[in-house]
């Protein structure tokens, strides 16, 4: 299917594909087995300017938008979803700076993030605040020209490895949803430490850990956006990055389907390649069709965002929801097509199945995505 990419988008995709095939795929199994953080691969991606994709040209980026991000995510995820999420999570930290940062903040942080010299991360989730994001307990108390942060963030991607963290904390508990604010916290700030690195089912190359704030003092200038707009910062950011998760899911699914298809052509049972059996053919047909539908939805959402649309929560959530459900189904089927071999760690599909699961959970569970979509539908219906 031709998606009529511009010449620059095609170049970007080709480059991401070359990196994925030549540099990432050969070591994906080892990264997963040993839970190795892919520092060297991130350097290769940085040297090829992939971190510049999210950032506008004025700050050292290439301004390739949500669509550019999706193209990179899809290609990298075909090789390893763990490396892909590490890249994406830096984008998740860059996004609030782009949307709500002051000129000084943008000039201070974006160039090093765009060059890949530094990594970013985004910290909202806590032990008592997953889907119930409004239930965060981390506080930021104003004290002269500083804020003091206290609390713990949980399951933060790039935790411990990133240099720049966007942290959502309560500044006015009494104000409920309007009582949270976003802050920029740098690694190495006294009172900011990291908890253990989590042991995960999948995306094992990525680092996931707790962030611990104990009387952590940050300058007042590190408030991101206006005080009290913490949830707006978070929601607007997630709207922009959800299609990227969709693209990750599409990449995982595509990778799994290609492996299963190749296997089905080579595996002979009952005197024939199993790809000649209708049962297998129908599975492959359904997998390919769903992947294409997911891809089309993800690209449409990304292009819609890049067109300058003001409201796109519904489209972004649809892309993330549909693509992640597709990835889970496709990877399970890929293991099934490969039978016993699919279950063995010698083959890549069991990893892809373990990797796919998280796409249905993070950046808003698929249940939350359905909430978002339904509320947008009702809102639109009321307007008519």
């Amino acid at each position: 299917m031709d998606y009529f990419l511009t010449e620059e988008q095609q170049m970007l995709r080709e480059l991401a594909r070359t990196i994925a095939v030549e540099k990432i795929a050969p070591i994906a199994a080892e990264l997963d087995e040993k839970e190795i953080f892919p520092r060297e691969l991130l350097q290769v991606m940085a040297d090829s300017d992939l971190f510049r994709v999210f950032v506008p040209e004025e700050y050292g980026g290439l301004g390739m938008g949500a669509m550019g991000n999706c193209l990179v995510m899809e290609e990298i995820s075909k090789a390893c979803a763990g490396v892909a999420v590490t890249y994406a999570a830096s984008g998740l930290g860059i996004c609030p700076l782009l949307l709500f940062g002051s000129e000084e903040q943008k000039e201070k942080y974006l160039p090093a993030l765009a060059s890949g010299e530094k990594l970013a991360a985004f910290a909202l989730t806590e032990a008592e605040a997953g889907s119930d994001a409004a239930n965060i307990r981390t506080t930021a108390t104003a004290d002269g020209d500083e804020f003091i942060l206290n609390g713990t963030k949980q399951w933060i991607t790039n935790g411990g490895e990133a240099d720049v963290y966007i942290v959502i904390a309560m500044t006015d508990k009494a104000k409920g949803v309007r009582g949270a604010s976003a802050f920029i916290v740098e690694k190495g700030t006294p009172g900011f430490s990291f908890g253990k690195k989590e042991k995960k089912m999948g995306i094992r190359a990525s680092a996931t850990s707790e962030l611990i704030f104990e009387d952590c003092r940050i300058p007042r200038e590190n408030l991101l956006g206006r005080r009290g707009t913490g949830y707006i910062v978070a929601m607007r950011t997630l709207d922009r990055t959800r299609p990227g998760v969709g693209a990750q899911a599409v990449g995982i699914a595509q990778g799994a389907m290609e492996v299963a298809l190749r296997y089905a052509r080579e595996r002979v049972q009952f005197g024939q390649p199993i790809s000649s059996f209708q049962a297998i053919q129908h599975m492959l047909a359904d997998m390919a069709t769903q992947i294409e539908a997911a891809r089309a939805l993800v690209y449409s959402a990304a292009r819609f965002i890049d067109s300058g649309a003001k409201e796109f929560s519904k489209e972004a959530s649809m892309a993330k929801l549909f693509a992640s459900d597709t990835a889970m189904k496709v990877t399970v089927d890929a293991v099934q097509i490969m039978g016993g071999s699919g279950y063995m760690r010698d083959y890549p599909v069991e990893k892809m199945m373990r990797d796919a699961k998280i796409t249905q959970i993070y950046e808003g569970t698929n249940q939350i995505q359905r909430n978002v979509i339904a509320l947008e539908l009702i809102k639109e219906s009321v307007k008519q």
Partner: protein
Amino acid sequence: MRIIVCIKQVPDTAEVKINRETNTLIREGVPSIINPFDLHALEEGIRIREKHGGTVTALTMGPAQAGEALREAVALGADDAVLLSDRAFAGADTLATAYTLAKAAEKIGFDLILCGRQAIDGDTAQVGPGMAECLAIPHVTCIRRLAVTETEKFRVERMTDDGYETLEVKGPALFTVIREINTPRLPSLRGMLRAKKMAFEPWTAATINAEAERIGLSGSPTWVVKVFNPPLPDGQGEVWQGDSAENAAKLIAVLRERQFV
């Protein structure tokens, strides 16, 4: 430091097949690539620039489509590129090619010239040394390491039949590189976008003030008559059974006798 890297666009010989009837190469439909050794030379040039400053200019002689190879070189990090393209250059053997490249290098100006050890289609390894001789500058072939010393000389490690030797060379100089010297980087997006916008105005024989009788076919004392796959030898092999240690000793004796070792 002004660095020139010579590159050649070649058919991807990994993809080339032999026409069984004529025993010649089938070139149609074979993708063109930058000669792999030249990628290592380009990578080394870029590293030297990153460390010591300066510019890297990619230089190639070929038909108009060789511009694609130059575009790739810019995407990899070369600052600019020169395309030598003129009907008068056609049919050049290594001597004429070396002369033509040398005249261009003179015009560009340089402190260091880097070449790949050999091209994977011709495999002569003659153009680098030929260029250096034309330019009357020192050259070292088959280097696996290159450094610039504090006294602005070059220190190189050169591969020999039994190992490596270290040499110090006063610039300007030319070196041909082998694969061990580095791992070439991948292109960067900014490089690719820059390269896309570049147009390469071809340099002709007039541009470089070339003497007509030293370029192209007229400047070539040698020419390619035929490229073919030699027929495989017919001989019978020998099979030795029995004790491995005895056979090993026997093998060494035979190899010595035939002067293979």
